């Protein structure tokens, strides 16, 4: 292969480094107006009255919109259509949009916000998941499983109680993963305009133009064919731009009403209110181990603080329990998950979507288990790594697994054998592993159509245009698209123009989320390119009198492999094909394989294949102050095959960077004022200054190893890299802190204060630990019971009637709590 695997300048690199890439806020149109949103200043209240008359009369104001203008709800998931572009009868968090002002400039719009009179009737506010669990009323939403519980899940694969009873040791641990946000450098922005035909065009910094397209058609009650959504290149997304958003609906409506372009560019504070970031998750892991160091069974409980809206929350809830089985062999598995509503900005998908939280718990618990069983944590993991090409207990079909090789590579690189438990007090190393999807197996809405489509247009000049709905969010999807096409057609990637993320021009791709683009778009691109190559090969074969099978496409030529001098240029090949067959255009598409899971809830977790990562982090902890410093990170990632190694390494390093932020400092947290004085519940610091995310100076040395073992399901063997490498870093840091100073920090962020508290506890003879110690009682539903494949299961839920045999031994084991 000429292109795939070779480090290359990305196809959009020049435009980006020369500042010529047009982001949403760079879209400037004649007669354009500007929009600002009035957001709720109270956390939970009924909207009694909105009087916008003063704002409407303000000079320079063209329009004021309120909830009355948006009767139809929307939401990313069909089961959570719980958002309105502007609040209708109540507000649910400080920052919930209430009204919109469209004015001649931003300044005027901002000034007019203060002229809108809103009367609220305050309601009891829920800041904490346990509050929401304990108080079914007032309900934040009039839907959900019960009271303020949005979703309750219970899935059981095999008899976990029996497995725990039969285990030699049972470990029970409780962990907490604090919420955090994506912090893309580009704030959300959108411009809407009515085109000369009266149709709507929306430019938006979105990861999912197809879903925005659907949401606009629904809320505006317009034919989707009259709406065009153009996803501008995103200045970072990380999951935070995957929902349809209020501001998109508002500018679209305003542009239609005013017949003038309308722009909105959110402030950083507003991005914190859009959120959809990492759910805070409290979790309990109960794991039974056998003497030989293998897992007997596992029971995981999670409690997610969902914030004020559904967003992707139902999927997030399932994800906290989905991938535990994909890394290590778990013969019996029980997952219970609960998501509650609170009066805070809605949580949703952030890089790793729902899985980093439970990965954190699982990998720390394994470290504790290894110590209790006096085993090396790397060797313990190597013993229990799931086998390739298997079906897990919860019916996830695992393809190639490079995890063992990842572990071997990082332990060698970091000299694990001579460092783990051998460094001087204050210094330590920790290991953790992970896995992630290469694309979700199911679309957000139920359908049988492809998940990604690519169209190619071949020009007589030898140029190729590649059309795909995928969105360039900085990850390099445009580059992957052209690389796949260039490889098949034997031309230079820069000969190909990618046209992406435009619902009028490009075939549907579901969007840049769930690490799906490389695998799905890549396979679609290869199919389209192969179809084009076949046409060209036919024509060239006829012209040269060389059998098709002997033709090679490389170096912008099509030639005889046995006589390389005999051939035509690529552009001549296109001309020959066009003369023979007419205009040359081909399509390709990709649909993931059907999932083996056929039970309710089995839609979250399946993927064509999974990536694997292992990381070792070195820490330096000052025992006096708890100050923590990370000098080095080693990380190995099972990529299958690198399409462009520069981008792959960039994603790995970027993941490490984001992971360090989550592990050490980032917190999306909220402040209540003294209750006798105020009902306020506000984001503690919605600013890039006080929401602490690492700077370049805080970045350690990162040593990246790529495991290239092509997976036949991926394009040229490629798997994902955008999210997976984030996952092992947080638990590896926690494990390294334990190695350094002998205390467990069972939550993130791992701050100096928490380390010092744990050291104080240790010095006082108490448990050398900082973290939660209690998991609340939750009214779990009867589990959906599914027999694992090795017990003759077929992926379907079992009949409830014959589920439980009587008289089983459930004698409680000695449970090791920490």
């Amino acid at each position, binding site marked *: 292969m000429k292109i795939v695997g070779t480090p290359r300048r990305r196809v959009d690199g020049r435009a980006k480094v020369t500042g010529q890439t047009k982001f949403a806020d760079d879209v400037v149109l004649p007669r354009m107006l500007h929009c600002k949103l009035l957001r709720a200043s109270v956390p939970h209240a009924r909207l009694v009255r909105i009087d916008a008359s003063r704002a409407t009369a303000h000079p320079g104001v063209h329009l004021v919109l309120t909830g009355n203008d948006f009767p139809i709800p929307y939401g990313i998931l069909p089961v959570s259509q719980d958002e309105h572009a502007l609040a209708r009868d109540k507000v649910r968090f400080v920052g919930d949009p209430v009204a919109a002002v469209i004015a001649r400039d931003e300044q005027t719009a901002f000034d007019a916000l203060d002229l809108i009179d809103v009367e609220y009737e305050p309601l009891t506010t829920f800041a904490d998941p346990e509050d929401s669990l304990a108080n079914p009323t007032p309900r934040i939403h009039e839907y959900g499983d019960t009271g303020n519980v949005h979703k309750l899940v219970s899935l059981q694969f095999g008899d976990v109680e029996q497995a725990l009873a039969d285990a030699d040791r049972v470990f029970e641990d409780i962990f907490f993963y604090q919420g955090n946000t994506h912090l893309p450098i580009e704030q959300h922005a959108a411009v809407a305009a009515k085109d000369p035909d009266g149709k709507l065009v929306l430019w938006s910094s979105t990861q999912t133009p197809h879903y925005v397209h659907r949401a606009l058609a629904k809320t505006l009650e317009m034919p989707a064919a009259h709406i065009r959504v153009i996803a501008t290149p995103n200045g970072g997304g990380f999951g935070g731009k995957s929902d349809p958003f209020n501001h998109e609906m508002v500018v679209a409506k305003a542009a239609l009403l005013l017949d003038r372009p309308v722009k909105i560019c959110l402030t950083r504070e507003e991005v914190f209110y859009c959120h959809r970031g990492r759910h805070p998750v409290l979790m309990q892991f109960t794991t039974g181990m056998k003497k030989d160091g293998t897992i007997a069974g596992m029971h995981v409980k999670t409690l997610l603080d969902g914030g004020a809206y559904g967003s992707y929350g139902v999927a997030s809830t399932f994800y906290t329990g989905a991938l535990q089985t994909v890394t290590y062999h778990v013969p019996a598995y029980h997952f219970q998950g609960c998501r509650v509503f609170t009066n805070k900005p809605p949580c949703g998908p952030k890089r790793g979507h729902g899985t980093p939280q439970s990965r954190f718990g699982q990998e720390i618990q394994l470290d504790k288990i290894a110590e209790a069983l006096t085993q090396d944590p790397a060797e313990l993991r190597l013993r229990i790594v799931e086998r390739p090409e298997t079906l897990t207990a919860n019916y996830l079909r695992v393809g190639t697994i490079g995890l063992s090789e990842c572990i071997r590579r990082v332990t060698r690189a970091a000299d694990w054998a001579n460092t783990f438990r051998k460094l001087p007090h204050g210094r330590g190393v920790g290991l953790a592993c992970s896995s992630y999807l290469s694309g979700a197996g199911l679309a957000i809405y139920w359908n049988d159509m492809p998940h990604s489509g690519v169209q190619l247009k071949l020009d007589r000049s030898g140029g190729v245009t590649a059309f795909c709905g995928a969105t360039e969010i900085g990850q390099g999807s445009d580059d992957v698209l052209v690389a796949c096409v260039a490889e098949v057609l034997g031309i230079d990637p820069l000969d190909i123009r990618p046209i992406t993320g435009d619902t009028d021009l490009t075939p549907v791709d579901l969007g840049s989320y769930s690490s799906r683009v490389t695998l799905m778009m890549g396979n679609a691109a290869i199919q389209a390119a192969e179809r084009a190559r076949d046409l060209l090969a036919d024509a060239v074969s006829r012209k040269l009198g060389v059998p098709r099978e002997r033709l090679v496409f490389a170096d912008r030529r099509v030639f005889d492999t046995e006589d390389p001098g005999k051939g035509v240029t690529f552009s001549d090949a296109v001309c020959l094909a066009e003369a023979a067959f007419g205009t040359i255009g081909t399509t390709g598409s990709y649909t993931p394989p059907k999932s083996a899971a056929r039970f309710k809830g089995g839609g979250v977790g399946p993927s064509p294949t999974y990536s694997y990562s292992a990381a070792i982090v070195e820490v330096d902890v000052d025992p006096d102050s708890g100050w923590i410093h990370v000098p080095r990170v080693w990380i190995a990632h099972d990529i299958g095959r690198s399409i462009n190694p520069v981008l792959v390494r960039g994603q790995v390093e970027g993941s490490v960077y984001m992971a360090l932020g989550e592990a050490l*400092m980032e917190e999306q947290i909220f402040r209540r004022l003294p209750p006798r004085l105020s009902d306020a519940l506000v984001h503690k610091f919605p600013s890039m200054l006080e929401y602490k995310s690492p700077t370049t100076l805080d970045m350690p040395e990162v040593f990246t190893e790529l495991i290239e073992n092509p997976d036949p399901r991926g394009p040229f063997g490629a798997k994902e890299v955008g999210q997976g490498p984030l996952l092992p870093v947080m638990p590896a840091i926690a494990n390294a802190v334990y190695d350094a100073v002998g205390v467990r920090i069972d939550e993130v962020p791992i701050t100096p204060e928490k380390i010092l508290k744990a050291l104080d506890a240790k010095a006082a003879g108490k448990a050398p630990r900082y973290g939660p110690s209690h998991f609340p009682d939750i009214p779990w539903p009867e589990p959906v019971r599914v027999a694992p494949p090795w017990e003759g299961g077929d992926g379907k839920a079992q009949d409830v009637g014959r589920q439980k045999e009587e008289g089983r031994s459930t004698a409680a084991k000695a449970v090791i709590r920490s």
Partner: protein
Amino acid sequence: MMRLPNFRFVAPTSVHQAAELLAASSGDTMLVAGGTDLLPNMKRRQQAPGTLVGVRHIAELRAISSGDGVTIGAGLTLTDVIRLRQGFGGQAREAYGALWQAAAQVATPQLRNMGTLGGNLCLDTRCNYYDQNYEWRKAIDFCMKKDGETCWVAPSSPKCVAVSSTDTAPALLALGASVTLVSANGTRQIALSDMYRNDGIHYLTRQRSEILTSVHVPRLDGWRSVYWKLRRRGAFDFPVLSVAAAAKIAKDGTVEAARIVLGAVASRPVEAPAEAIAALVGRPLTDDLISEVAERAAQPSRPLDNTDFTLVWRKRMTKFFVSYALKELRGDDMRARRLKVSRQELL
């Protein structure tokens, strides 16, 4: 994005003109130099001056002179100030080390290229309830420092407890600096220490009509000084605790004179108690003495819950930071510690 409110801008070309403008103005006129503090605050409507008097282009404010010590124009950027360490025949390098180390740790390179020494000395006090945009502050019904009545950090407090967050002030206080204030009515020189008040709202004794024109640092032969800053990250962040220390140490290691100043633990920089300094003078800097003095010097540290990190931990860190400073003054190799705490090498 957030926009600046409308204001009138005047750009005098001399200190005299600027002073006249201030004298003639009503109460809503403010000075602006680099604007790195004021302009973001204006976007958040923490300040809404009707008129800004820009002093960035007044050459007099960028003058530097040496003689009995050095006089540094308040209009020099922090980047300029850092560059000065090479000057004065190298003699200032160690004696004024605290100033260079403090200036080098303000914000980021871009902000240091704009922000001035005078601006950093007059930096608005900071608080997590105050450094928020208008809508946020409205959601808590505002606070005592701007538009409200209650101090949400300490609801029973009669005065604002916003935090002095300047890096250069503790350093210059440790150097015994004084400042020159010019108004239409005349010029006065005061000890820098006298420019500050422990009140989050009225944190400066400088009159609104006065312009801080220069900083004078006395000649400090045989002195060394250092600055240690606690913050979460290696850049951007304001201090949540800082320690500036200066000492004159005899060849035999005996401390002849010393000053220790704490930053970011009150609404003004706080000088260490006299007994802490008295304990130092006349004795060599042994580990035991350093521990003892660190405990004493940390006594006045009273952080509150209005910055990054918890107040209990910040209080607890004070003595460690004093000891780092004293060890560095003693001549210990603190580079590894610096790298871990500051995430950069400092000069």
